[in-house]
């Protein structure tokens, strides 16, 4: 495939996304005639288009994933700007930092052979970072997962996700099961101390999947599933907020004015949206508590409708399938595990939060990747996509070299 064809494909893919964002911001600008909204209407689609079309010219990245991820991020900026302009602008700044993180992670995978000696240091640093909230953390929504440093508040467990994927892939590729399990177990213990059960669920699930992918051992998978069931029962017995969330999940209408208020409002907002939505700027999802973080999907559902919600889920599905495809095309175990881990982590997180929003599973406090408000979450999610892009980059390089070798061989013959 020539470079020009690739660029044309990127343009064709990015164009509907850019038009979508331009239309959305222009519509919001017509509502208030505020200069900042007009500026956003010009800037956000432009940044989206450049990040999707121009960026792959400088870094050999997977165009499809890049474009879809950029679209979700820009959609998040649009949804947040509509609800709270300050947060929308803040999210746009986070998006920029996330893009920088993505490029850095891509480079990290590309030159992993030069820094792989740092795996023990990365593991140690990750555990120390994860221990910070236990001692210096601030509690929000029942979880003590936040740390404020020099006026900047961040969630270490989001950053450690990147380290978890790198460390697990590196150790499991070398058949070092015990260090991998010890590292993961340490992270889980610290998460339990922070009472951040949603993130702990993700860490546990991703470790189980990667161990299964590395060993193909059904016994280990079964043991892990039994462990998860035992952990869920123990968590239900130990933590009162877990019991409350399960009760809300079973019937939110029993206490719809207090503990069930959030989920009831979410369900009402989604039902109000209907098939086509209420229209951008006409919804009433603002009444849902934590709508900008945990319930952003309900807000999208409310204003854009069920059909659009299904499209958003399909975008996540495409990213997951593409990630698995990258993993299968990879020639080394490290890269296969890394790509699989990245795609599964994003897919699992999406399932957990969307499932919670639509009352399919009990609600857990994780963010919707790329869309929810949160600097650490967005930078972390984009960095994970950077790791995936790095594997895609290595695969493309392998293919190019195979072609070159074949060409040289033919010339030699």
């Amino acid at each position, binding site marked *: 495939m020539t470079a020009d064809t690739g660029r044309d494909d990127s343009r064709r893919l990015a164009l509907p996304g850019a038009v979508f964002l331009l239309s959305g911001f222009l519509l919001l600008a017509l509502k208030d005639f505020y200069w900042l909204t007009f500026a956003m209407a010009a800037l956000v689609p432009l940044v989206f288009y450049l990040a999707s079309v121009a960026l792959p010219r400088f870094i050999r990245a997977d165009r499809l994933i890049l474009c879809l991820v950029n679209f979700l991020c820009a959609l998040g900026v649009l949804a947040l700007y509509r609800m709270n302009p300050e947060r929308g602008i803040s999210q746009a700044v986070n998006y920029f930092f996330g893009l920088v993180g993505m490029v850095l992670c891509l480079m990290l995978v590309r030159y992993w052979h030069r820094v792989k000696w740092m795996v023990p240091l990365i593991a140690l640093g990750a555990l120390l970072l994860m221990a910070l909230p236990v001692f210096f953390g601030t509690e929000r929504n029942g979880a003590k997962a936040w740390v404020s440093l020099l006026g900047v508040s961040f969630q270490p467990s989001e950053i450690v996700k990147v380290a978890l994927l790198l460390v697990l892939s590196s150790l499991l590729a070398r058949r070092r099961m015990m260090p991998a399990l010890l590292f993961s177990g340490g992270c889980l213990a610290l998460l339990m101390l922070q009472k951040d059960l949603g993130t702990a669920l993700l860490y546990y699930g991703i470790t189980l999947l990667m161990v299964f992918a590395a060993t193909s051992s059904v016994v280990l998978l079964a043991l892990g599933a039994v462990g998860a069931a035992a952990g869920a029962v123990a968590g239900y017995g130990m933590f009162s907020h877990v019991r409350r969330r399960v009760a809300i999940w079973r019937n939110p209408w029993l206490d719809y004015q207090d503990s069930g208020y959030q989920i009831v409002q979410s369900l009402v907002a989604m039902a109000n949206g209907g098939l086509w939505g209420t229209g951008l700027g006409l919804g009433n999802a603002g009444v849902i508590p934590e709508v900008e973080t945990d319930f952003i999907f309900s807000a999208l559902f409310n204003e854009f409708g069920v*059909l659009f919600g299904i499209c958003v889920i399909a975008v996540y599905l495409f990213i997951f399938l593409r990630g698995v495809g990258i993993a299968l095309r990879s020639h080394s175990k490290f890269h296969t595990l890394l790509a699989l881990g990245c795609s599964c982590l994003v897919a699992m997180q999406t399932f957990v939060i969307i499932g919670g929003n639509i009352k399919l599973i009990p609600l857990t406090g994780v963010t919707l990747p790329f869309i929810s408000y949160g600097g650490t979450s967005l930078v972390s999610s984009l960095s994970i996509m950077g790791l995936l892009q790095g594997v895609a980059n290595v695969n493309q390089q392998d293919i190019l*070299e195979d072609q070159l070798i074949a060409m040289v061989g033919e010339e030699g013959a």
Partner: protein
Amino acid sequence: MTESQWRRVTAAGGARAIIRASPKGGKHLQAPAYELLSMGLRYWFVLLAVFLLWRAYRLMRKDRRDYRRTLRQLPDAGLVGEVVDLRENRGIPLPREGMMGSSRSCDVRVPGLKRREMEFTFRPGRGVRLIPVHRRHGASLDGEALRAGDAFALHGTVLEIRDQSFRFRLFAGLDLPERVPPPPPPLPQAEFPGEAWGSDLLPDIPPPLPPAETGADPMERTWQYAPLPELAQEWPEEAEPAHPFRRRRRAREEERDDG
């Protein structure tokens, strides 16, 4: 007034009618007009999202097609050789790393073996490292019991697992060092001159290997000089491939295999 002027005035009047001064002093679109516009654009947004997905689906399909075409053009991409099942006399492509066994998920699938029999990893310059999954594997390499950890199969190595035999044929062995011809064994001392030259007295010495052809393709040389397993242990591990592409690739493979 011409028709075009009339249209301009009407449009301006219409715009003035729907854009009113807001209480803050700025302007805003009147609520009914905005509602109408927003509700109309709902379909536009869904259409664009579906269009984006359609484009993404098309790109995925195209990319898969291109990838398959590339693989057809490069049938050896990602492979390091083949394993020949000596019982059935058929070759099975050997990827760089994977699992050997009878399970459908195995990279080298051989009916008759255990579901997961042996893990293998190609190490440039050393051969294919074999790691048995089970403790009681009953495998041997060139007649010697296979020891986990330092079992490397080279080109020509015969692997026996219980009653099945396999021979490794490696074409990625181009990264292996060229075989150094062993020094010929000393001739037996002749009791009297001329006796040693008699053909009936000569020991059964294997013919010496021909010298390497300069300029020949390294892959050809590897096939020609299939290294013997016992000699391989003494060879230098680092051998610089001739072509820069191969040098670069080998460095990357080594780095990747280590970590």
